[in-house]
C-alpha cells in the first residue's frame, strides 16, 4: 500500500494511541450531549471542546501522498478491517442527471470547509439521523483517515463537481461525412483514384444526406431544451410531494389559476408543512434544512428555471388553466413521477399549434355564447360536435406575439 516515513509512522501511532484513549474516556459524555443538528451546535463540555480543538483535527497541510490516500479512502479503495467504505457510492463526485438524495461531495465539503474534521468524524462514526445510522453503521475509520477524507473533499470547493464529457458521436459523424464528401468532390474534379465515377456520386449522395440530416436535426433543436433537467439547489422531488403526498399542484403554484405565471412557491409556502416536517424519509434533514435556512436568512432559494419561453411569446397560465380548463400534465407531463423535474415538451411553436388545432373549446362559457353565438347555436342544434381553438382564432399570430 503506502509507504510512510519512520517519523510519520511514529506520529500516527502516537496520535492513534492518544486519540483512542480520549475517545474511550470521553465517549459516554459526548454521546449524551449530542443534539439533532450536530453541525450547528458547539460542543458544550470542556472535554469535547478540547477534542474539537485538538491538533489532529486542525491539520492543514497535507502531502500529496496523504491527499492520494484521502482520495482512495473516498472511493473505497482502501481496505479497512472487515469491509471497505465507499463514500462515492452515495455521495456523487460527478454532475448527475438523475436525482441522488444524498448530498454530493461538493455539498459536504462546503458544509465542513470552515469547520474542523471533528464534526465530520461525528457524522461518520456516530450519526444521529435514521438513514445515516443505517448506512454509516460500523465504520472503522481512524481520525487520521477522516482528516484525509476531508482534505480530499475540500478540493471540490474550488473546482466543483466533475462534469461528464459530452458525447460527440454526431460531431464525429459530421466531420467524417464532410471529409468523405470533400474527398469525393475532389476526386470528381481531378478524376484520378476511381475509375468509375458512380462510386463518387454514390458517396456524395449518401454523405450529402447524412450531413443535411445532422445539420437539420441539430438546427431544429437549437435553443430548444426538451428533456432539460438541471440540478436544483434543493433536491426537491415532485414525486414525493405531488405523487406520494398527493399535494395539489395549485397548492404551491398558487398563481397558476389567476396569473400569467404559475409562480415558483415562496419559501413561506414550504414552511406551511416544513415548519413541522423537518426530516425527509430519504433525504434526511439536509435538504429540508436548506429551505429553513433560506427562510431564516430571508434569502430566497435560487431555483434553476426549466420551462422558459422566449421574450416575444406571451403565454398565460390563467388562460390555459382557468379559462381553457386544461390540466397541468397536458404540458408538464407526469410530474407526479418525476423526482428530478425535466422539460417534457420541446416548447416549439409547432407543439403549441398542434394542441390549438385539436383541443376543443368549452362553448358553454357565457363569453363564447355571446360572441360565438353562431357556433354555439350550431353546437346546440347538433350541426357541429365541437369547435377547436384554431376555430376561434387560436392560430392568429397576434394572440401570442405582441
Amino acid at each position, binding site marked *: 500500500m503506502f509507504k510512510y516515513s519512520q517519523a510519520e509512522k511514529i506520529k500516527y501511532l502516537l496520535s492513534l494511541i492518544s486519540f483512542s484513549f480520549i475517545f474511550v474516556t470521553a465517549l459516554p459524555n459526548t454521546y449524551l450531549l449530542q443534539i439533532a443538528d450536530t453541525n450547528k451546535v458547539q460542543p458544550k463540555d470542556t472535554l469535547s471542546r478540547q477534542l474539537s480543538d485538538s491538533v489532529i483535527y486542525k491539520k492543514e497541510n497535507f502531502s500529496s501522498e496523504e491527499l492520494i490516500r484521502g482520495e482512495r479512502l473516498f472511493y473505497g479503495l482502501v481496505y479497512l478491517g472487515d469491509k471497505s467504505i465507499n463514500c462515492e457510492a452515495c455521495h456523487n463526485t460527478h454532475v448527475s442527471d438523475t436525482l441522488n438524495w444524498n448530498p454530493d461531495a461538493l455539498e459536504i465539503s462546503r458544509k465542513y470547509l470552515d469547520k474542523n474534521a471533528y464534526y465530520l468524524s461525528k457524522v461518520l462514526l456516530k450519526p444521529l439521523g435514521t438513514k445515516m445510522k443505517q448506512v454509516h453503521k460500523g465504520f472503522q475509520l481512524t481520525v487520521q483517515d477522516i482528516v484525509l477524507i476531508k482534505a480530499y473533499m475540500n478540493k471540490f470547493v474550488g473546482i466543483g463537481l466533475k462534469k461528464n464529457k459530452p458525447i460527440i458521436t454526431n460531431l464525429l459523424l459530421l466531420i467524417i461525412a464532410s471529409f468523405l464528401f470533400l474527398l469525393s468532390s475532389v476526386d470528381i474534379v481531378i478524376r484520378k483514384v476511381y475509375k468509375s465515377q458512380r462510386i463518387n456520386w454514390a458517396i456524395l449522395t449518401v454523405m450529402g444526406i447524412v450531413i443535411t440530416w445532422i445539420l437539420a436535426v441539430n438546427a431544429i433543436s437549437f435553443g430548444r431544451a426538451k428533456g432539460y433537467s438541471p440540478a436544483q439547489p434543493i433536491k426537491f422531488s415532485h414525486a414525493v410531494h405531488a405523487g406520494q403526498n398527493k399535494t395539489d399542484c395549485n397548492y404551491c403554484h398558487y398563481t397558476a389559476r389567476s396569473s*400569467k405565471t404559475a409562480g415558483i412557491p415562496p419559501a413561506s409556502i414550504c414552511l406551511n408543512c416544513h415548519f413541522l416536517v423537518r426530516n425527509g424519509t430519504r433525504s434526511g434533514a439536509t435538504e429540508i434544512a436548506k429551505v429553513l435556512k433560506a427562510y431564516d436568512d430571508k434569502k430566497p432559494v435560487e*431555483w434553476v428555471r426549466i420551462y422558459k419561453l422566449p421574450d416575444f411569446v406571451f403565454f398565460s397560465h390563467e388562460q390555459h388553466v382557468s379559462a381553457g380548463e386544461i390540466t397541468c400534465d397536458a404540458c408538464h407531463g407526469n410530474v407526479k413521477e418525476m423526482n428530478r423535474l425535466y422539460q417534457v415538451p420541446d416548447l416549439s411553436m409547432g407543439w403549441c399549434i398542434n394542441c390549438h388545432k385539436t383541443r376543443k373549446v368549452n362553448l358553454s362559457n*357565457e363569453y363564447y355564447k355571446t360572441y360565438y353565438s353562431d357556433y354555439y347555436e350550431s353546437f346546440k342544434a347538433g350541426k357541429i360536435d365541437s369547435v377547436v381553438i384554431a376555430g376561434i382564432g387560436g392560430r392568429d*399570430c397576434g394572440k401570442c406575439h405582441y
Partner: protein
Amino acid sequence: MKKYWKDIKSKKSQEKISDIKKVSDENVFFGFLGDEEKITHASRRDFLKLCGFSFAVSALASCQSKISKAVPYVIAPVEMTPGMPLYYSSSYINGNDYCSIIVKTRDGRPIKIEGNPGSGITMGGTSARVQASVLDLYDSGRFHGPMKDGKPSEWESIDKEIIGKLQDIVEEKGRIVLLTPTVFSPSTEAVIAGFLRKFKGSEWVQYDAISYSAMLEANKISFGKQVIPDFRFDKADLVVSFGADFLGTWLSPVEYTKQFSSGRNPEHEMTRLIQLESNLTITGSNADKRIQIKPSQEPSILLNIYKEIVKVLENRNFNTPACPVDVSEISKNLISFKGKSIVISGSKVKEVQLLVNEINRLLGNIGQTILFNSFLRTHAALDSQMKMLIEKMQRGMVNALLVWNVNPAYTWYNRDAFTGGLKKVGLTISLSGSPDETNTLFQFICPDHHYLESWNDAEAKREHFSLMQPTINHIFDTRQMADTLLKWTGSTISFYDFIKDYWADNLMSRQSEFTDPVMFFDRTLQKGIFEPASSKGLSVEKLPKTDSLAFNPAAFKTGDNSGKKSIEIVFYETVAIGEGRQANNPWLQELPDPVTKICWDNYASISPLLAKEYNLNDNDVIKLEEVELPVHIQAGQAYGTIGIALGYGRLKCGKAGENIGTDVWPMLLSENGNIVHTVKLDHIVKTGKTYTFAQTQTHHSMEGRAFVREADLSEFRNNQAAGNELHAYNLEHNKSLYKERTYPHHHWGMAIDLSKCTGCANCVIACQAENNVPVVGKEEVHRVHEMHWLRIDRYYTGDEDDPEVVFQPVLCQHCQNAPCENVCPVAATNHSSEGLNQMIYNRCFGTRYCNNNCPYKVRRFNWFNYSAAGTLTGNLRDKEGMTENLRRMVLNPDVTIRAQGVIEKCSFCVQRIQAAKLKAKYENRALMENEIQTACSQSCPANAIVFGDMNDLKSELNRLINSGRRYNLLEELFTMPSVNYLTRIKNKIV
C-alpha cells in the same frame, strides 16, 4: 373642397414634388449638422470585420443557452400576484400641475399612469406631462441621498447639524425663509405651519415660475378674493380668450379640455371659441375664430369690447382709442351669450385682468361660468413676494433659506439678483429631489421623494380633496420634504400618520358615510378622491362683493403702440416641457410640439411676413438682445411678434435634458411687481449662422391631398354629411379584386372625433409608455427615424398669413384590405380573425416592403438598437440613457421590446384586448361596456378617441360610425381601415 397645406414651403411648391427636402450628403451617415460628434468613416474592411465578428458572436451565443434562475419571494406579499398588475389611486403634483391618477404597477414597479375617472376635476383625463411623469421616477440623475457641500452625507448627521444651525438662528433672532411653489396640500400646509411655529421668526414664501399673480391681485381688487376662480367651460356657450392657452398650458388644461370638449358635440350643443393671440397655440388652433393680435393691442381691444357692452347693457358711452381689430362681432356675441360666456386673458398685467373681470361682471358670468366658491388652489403665489425676498436676501436679512421644488436661479427673470443675494445667506438648504441650477449652489441637499414614492394629499380646487400614496419604496436614499420638516420640528410621527390624523380631525366631519376614521381614510385612499362639495351642494354660488369702482375706463392705459420698438416677443410654455421641470424626461423632449412639430429644441417663431421683411429663412439664427435663437417661420404667428418657449436651455438637470434649446428666462421683465411674458424689441439681428431642427411633420407630407374633412355647424345642421360628400361617392365606387373578409365575432375598431381632438399630444406619450416605444434622440428624429406609433398630423388651411389649423391623430389604420400584408415576403404582418393587422416582430427580418407600401406611413423601422434588446454589439443608439437599467424599469413587461432591424407599429393595444377577453372568460361573462380601452383612448382628455367592437351594435363606437360625419383616411384606396374619423365641425360666426 378646401386646399390643405402642411407648411409654408410646401404651399409654395405644391406643384413641384421634386422640391421635397433633400438631406445634404454629409448628413446621411454617421454625422449630424452642427453637432460636435465626429464624422466617422467606416471602411469596407471594418464592415467585413464587423460581419465576421457578429457572425461568430451570434453563432457562439446560440450554441449554449443561458442558465436562467427563478427566484421566488421568501415571504410573498398578500396583495401581490406575480405577473399581474396592481393599481393604486394617487395624485400627480408637480409644481402647479395637478391630476388625479391611477397608477399601474407590475411586480412592484409603477409602469403606467391613467387618469382617475372619479375625479371631479380631471375626470379621467391626463396630459402628456402626467403620462411622462412615471419616467421621472426612474431617473438616475435624481439625488441619490443627502449631501453636504456637494459630498454625500448621512441623514442623521445632517439632521443634527441643520437643527442646531436653525436653532442658533432663532436664538439670534435671525430670519429663516422657506421657499416653495404654491402648496395646495392641506397636510403639507399644516406641517409648514408647525415648522414656522417651531422656528420663530421664520417666513414662508410661495413662488411660481409661471405665476398668475396679476390675475390674483386683480381678483382681490375686483371681487375681494385673492384667488383664481373655477372656470366652467362646460357651462359656457361662448369663450373669448386673449392669449390664454387653456387647452394647452393655462392653469388647469386637463380639466378645461374635458369641460370644453364636452361642449363640442355637433349633434347637440356646440361651444364657440374665439381666440385673440400672437403665438399660434393649441387653443388658437381649435378656435372657431382666431384673430392675430400683438400683446400691446390687447388692452385697447378689451377696452373697445367693454365700451360696446357698456353701450348696450348700461347705455353709457365713453371715448376709447381706436381699435386695431373689429370687435363689433365679438361684442355682439358676448351680449347674446350673456351669463353663458367666459372672457379670459393670459396677460400678466394687472390692469388688463381688472378689465377682464369687469367685462365678466357686466355680462353676469360671475357665479354662472366663473365660480368663486370653488376656487382653484394650485396657483396662489405672488411675484411681489419673491421680489421682496430677494431684496431681503441682498440686504443680508435672510439667515437661512430652505428651497423646495422651485428653481429661481433658472426661472427668475433677474437671476443674478437671486444668486447674488444667495451669497449673503448663511445657511442654504435644498429640499428638492433632483439637481437644478439653484440647489447646485446650496450647502445642504436633503432630497425629496419622487411623487410616486410619497404620501401626500391635495386640494387642487376648494372642497375637492385627493390623496397621494406611494406605489414603490423609495429608490434612492431620499426622504419626503414634509417628513424632513416634521423631523426638524421635533415631531416623532411620520408624515403618513400626520396626514391620517389631519384627515380624521379636519375632513372626517364633512361626510356621514363612515364613522370610523380608519375606514374613512382607507376607503378614500382606495378611491383617491374626496369631494364633499358635490354632495353638499356647494355649487350654489354666493356672489362675491364686487367693487364697481375698481375699474375706471378713463384711467385705463392702453399702452403706447406708436413707439419705435415695433417687434414684440411673446414668451410661452410648451405643452411638453412647461417651465422646464421635466426637462430631463426624454419622452417629453422627443414629443413634437403640437403646432410646430419640432422636438428637442426651442426657437423663435416668426410670421412669414416678418421673415420676408428681414430676409429670414427657416433655420437661420437670429440675435435678440443677448440671445441667439434659430428661426422657425410659423404661419399664424401675429405679424410683428416673435414667439419663444421658456423652459429650455437647462444647465443642470440630468443627462438627457441639459443644453437642449436656449434659455430665455433672463429676457423676461418685471412690470409693477408682476413678471410679464412680453418684451418689446427694436429690430432683429441676423447672424448668418444656421441651425438644424428635428422636425417630424415635414416627413409626413400628404402632398396636398385632403384627409381632414371639415364643415361649419350651420352646414352640418342641414346636412349630416356636410364636408364629407366624398364618403358616399367612395363607398359607391370602390371595388376590390379580393374577396371581402368578414369578422363575425369580434371586429375591433376606433373612431376619432376631429371636432373634439385638440391635438394636445397626451395620446402620443400614453402610447409610448404603454408600448415601450423607444426614444431615438434629436439626430435620429432629424433623419426621419422617430418611432412614435401614434402621431398627430397638423395641417393648415386657408391664407398662409391667417391660417386655420386642423389636427389629425394617425395610427395604424388596421385596414381590412391592408396593403402592407400583401408585400411581406415572410408573412410577418397579417390579419387576425378579429380584424387586427398584426405585426410579428420575431418573424420580421426587415425588408421594409410593408413600410413602403403603407399609404399612411405608420410603420416604424428600428434602424439602430434603440432599446438594447438586440444581441449584436456596436449598434446601440442611446444618447439619452434610456437603456440604463434604472430607466428600463418603466418598460411594460406585456409588450415585446423590439430589437434592431424589425418593423413595429400600433397593435391596437392587443395586450389589453387579450387581458380583457381572458378576464371575461375567467369570470364566465360577456365583455362589459368600454372594458377594453387602448392607451390613447383611455386617458384622452377630450374624449376624442373611442375604441370598441364594431360588431357590438349598442356601443358608443357604433353610434359614431353610423354618423354622417364618419369617413376613412384615404378611403379612395379601398384599404377599408378599422380606424374611422369624424368630420371636424366648426362653430363659426356666420
